[in-house]
């Protein structure tokens, strides 16, 4: 089946190029930038590579990543170290994340404190291999698992498509943190100096990886042409608006329906009749419903990757992936219980790998 697999690479490359070439005019007609077309191509190829169905060698294209965002924690070494010793969650492991693929949608947020604590962020696209180093300034990790086993677990999680497990510094969620965003110099500009924008965000936004969703490639590219001060204020406004709407949605989701407790009803005061007894039963049912709703909310608020949600099993074992052939038929015949198949132009997915064929003949008994 080696021929089938080598054909796959060539065919998939050819199809991608053909699609990109032929939709270019449609993109221009709709006023969509050429860069978006290239981004689509890059994301498509990255996803194809991530699927592991084919071993694609991704182009070293010039897809621009959004700049890294670094939050400075102005704490002294001693204070931070003391806090790290007190809090069991504090860790001396620094998380270095590398973006898989070349997608310009991917964004990376790192929270660096002078004590060497770091909050890594999940990355929207691609798998994220994680390297971890123990910082010599700090005591070893206080987690029950060792740094090595922790690293192994995180790499397993990343390879099974769950993304990275962020390592979050223990900070007051309401504390306002300065975040420096380094913008590369625009392509057309004469000066090659990069600019630094500073915005203020609550620590909770860093801990919950909200910035990765807010600071998209589209947003960053739109402010790159603005002067530094204006760019900072525009970015600050955008982040504030996004965070406030996110918080508003959270509070709406957490809000409970509490009306009805202070209501007065004539029926309640009257003598008990069959109707009233029925109503009481209904009230009991309503209470049960409310309790169920509370339990559901509690379940929803439980974070992903917590306890029973995390699995070390390979996803292929959990989901019995079908071997599928998608093709066209020239002829399918049956004689008594013997069937003959004459197929063509097929794409097969066998054990997670893709194969292609021009012709495929086969037989089976029913």
């Amino acid at each position: 089946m080696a021929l089938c697999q080598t054909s796959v690479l060539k065919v998939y490359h050819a199809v991608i190029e053909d699609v990109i070439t032929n939709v270019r005019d449609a993109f221009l007609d709709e006023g969509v930038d050429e860069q978006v077309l290239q981004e689509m191509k890059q994301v498509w190829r990255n996803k194809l590579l991530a699927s592991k169905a084919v071993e694609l060698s991704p182009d070293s294209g010039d897809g621009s990543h959004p700049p890294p965002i670094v939050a400075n924690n102005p704490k002294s070494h001693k204070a931070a170290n003391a806090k790290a010793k007190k809090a069991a969650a504090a860790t001396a492991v620094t998380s270095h994340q590398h973006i898989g693929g070349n997608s310009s949608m991917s964004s990376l947020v790192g929270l660096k404190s002078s004590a060497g604590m770091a909050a890594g962020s999940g990355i929207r696209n691609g798998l994220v291999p994680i390297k971890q180093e123990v910082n010599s300034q700090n005591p070893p990790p206080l987690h029950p698992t060792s740094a090595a086993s922790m690293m192994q677990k995180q790499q397993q999680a990343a390879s099974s498509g769950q993304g990275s497990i962020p390592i979050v510094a223990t900070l007051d969620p309401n504390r306002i943190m300065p975040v420096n965003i380094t913008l590369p110099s625009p392509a057309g500009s004469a000066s090659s100096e990069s600019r630094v924008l500073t915005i203020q965000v609550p620590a909770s936004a860093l801990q919950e990886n909200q910035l990765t969703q807010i600071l998209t490639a589209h947003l960053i590219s739109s402010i790159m042409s603005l002067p530094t001060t204006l760019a900072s204020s525009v970015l600050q406004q955008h982040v504030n608006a996004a965070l406030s709407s996110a918080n508003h949605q959270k509070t709406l989701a957490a809000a409970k329906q509490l009306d009805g407790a202070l209501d007065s009803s004539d029926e309640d005061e009257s003598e008990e009749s069959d109707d009233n007894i029925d109503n009481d039963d209904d009230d009991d049912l309503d209470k049960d419903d409310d309790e169920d709703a509370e339990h559901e909310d509690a379940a929803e608020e439980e974070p992903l990757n917590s306890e029973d949600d995390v699995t070390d099993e390979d996803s292929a074992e959990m989901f019995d992936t079908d071997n599928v052939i998608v093709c066209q038929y020239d002829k399918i015949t049956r004689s008594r219980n013997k069937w003959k198949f004459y197929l063509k132009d097929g794409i097969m997915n066998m054990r997670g790998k893709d194969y292609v064929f021009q012709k495929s003949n086969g037989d089976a008994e029913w």
Partner: protein
Amino acid sequence: MSYQLYRNTTLGNTLQESLDELIQYGQITPGLAFKVLLQFDKSINNALNQRVKARVTFKAGKLNTYRFCDNVWTLMLNDVEFREVHEIVKVDKVKIVACDGKSGEF
């Protein structure tokens, strides 16, 4: 001939995911994504017809189920042995979805 059945392959699914992301980010419209998918249908059909030369034979121990509806065969085979020249691949079960190779638009 531009069948849409190849959209449900690795290449087709990854394209659809990519387009969904671009739509979510407001970088393209659903209408433009639809045009891209139509072009994908043409390109994949053409590529399979023109560029692929591999020939495979297979022998199934059992045809488990079959369905023929709207000129589409859906077959479930068990204990299948695929052979390409001297290479053999054996699998427990295979699902085949096949459209009519002689008809026009799907």
